[in-house]
């Protein structure tokens, strides 16, 4: 478990989580990035305009 930096809800993190993985906070629905592991640190994921084919 780790705290959401936006709403401070607890966010459950799987044991197999990896650095830079995106998880969604069930409380505020924001997308969060795992920016550190053991202990897990979450940050608001940057908004990215998705455009593939690069």
């Amino acid at each position, binding site marked *: 478990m780790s705290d959401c930096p936006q709403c401070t809800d607890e966010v459950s993190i799987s044991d197999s989580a990896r650095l830079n993985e995106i998880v969604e906070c069930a409380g505020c629905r924001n997308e969060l990035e795992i920016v550190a592991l053991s202990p897990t640190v979450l940050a608001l994921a*940057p908004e*990215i305009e*998705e455009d*593939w*084919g*690069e």
Partner: protein
Amino acid sequence: MTRLLTVVKCGGNPAVDSRGICADVARLVHRGESVVLVHGGSGEIARLAGKLGVPQRTLVAPDGVSARYTDPAMLEVVVLALAGAVKPAIVAALSGLGAPAVGLTGLDGGMLRARRKPAVRAMVDGRTVLVRDNHGGQIAAVRTDLLEGLLRSGFVPVVSPPAINEHDQPVNVNADRVAAALTVALGADRLVLLTGAPGVLADAGDETSMHSTYAVPPAGAPGSVAGGMALKLVAAREALAGGVTSVRIADGRVPEPISRALAGAGTTVT
């Protein structure tokens, strides 16, 4: 520019016959038309990456569309392969056919300015992760003065990625979309995207299932077509949106592939 101007994109795909394409470019030039030849080089990139021990990796977006993962080592390989191997071979071939070619990348004359995104979302082992060292980007601006001067002087520009970003660093961009962006910016008459298939296929495994025309949806991923062709259709859509009236996706494996495409072979994208 009063002469008929065609932008041709060739692969990339080792199945595409670059000698035949060069011969056809020379034919068009000799009858007084202007051509800009845009090239990729996936075969040479793969060969050189293998020799240099740089792993080829793919980013898969959450929607399933995939793209090359251009980390710094792969960016070096991409530029080596395109500017240092594929392009000199095309320029020498065109020269041998009496078509005076000039090899360029998007760096030259600040031709292709790109935005590199600081991070992209990708699927890795079923998880969505942010990838921050991808040196791929999308074209943000095109300068045409260099190309226009060369075309006026009768040269055949041979253009490929990389583009240059706002920090004057090379950025990999998709060559089909380079071709589309140049067609729009130059106000060219026609865009021909050559590929290793007869055109856009309804069934990727059946070469007889070609659409003679294909209406690309106005937004989102084109449906029911595989990876490389989906990107060609995105490029075609960008050209159409920019006012290009003739956009064809056609077979690059046949003799006189450009002439055939201009005569109606392949798929007209609308």
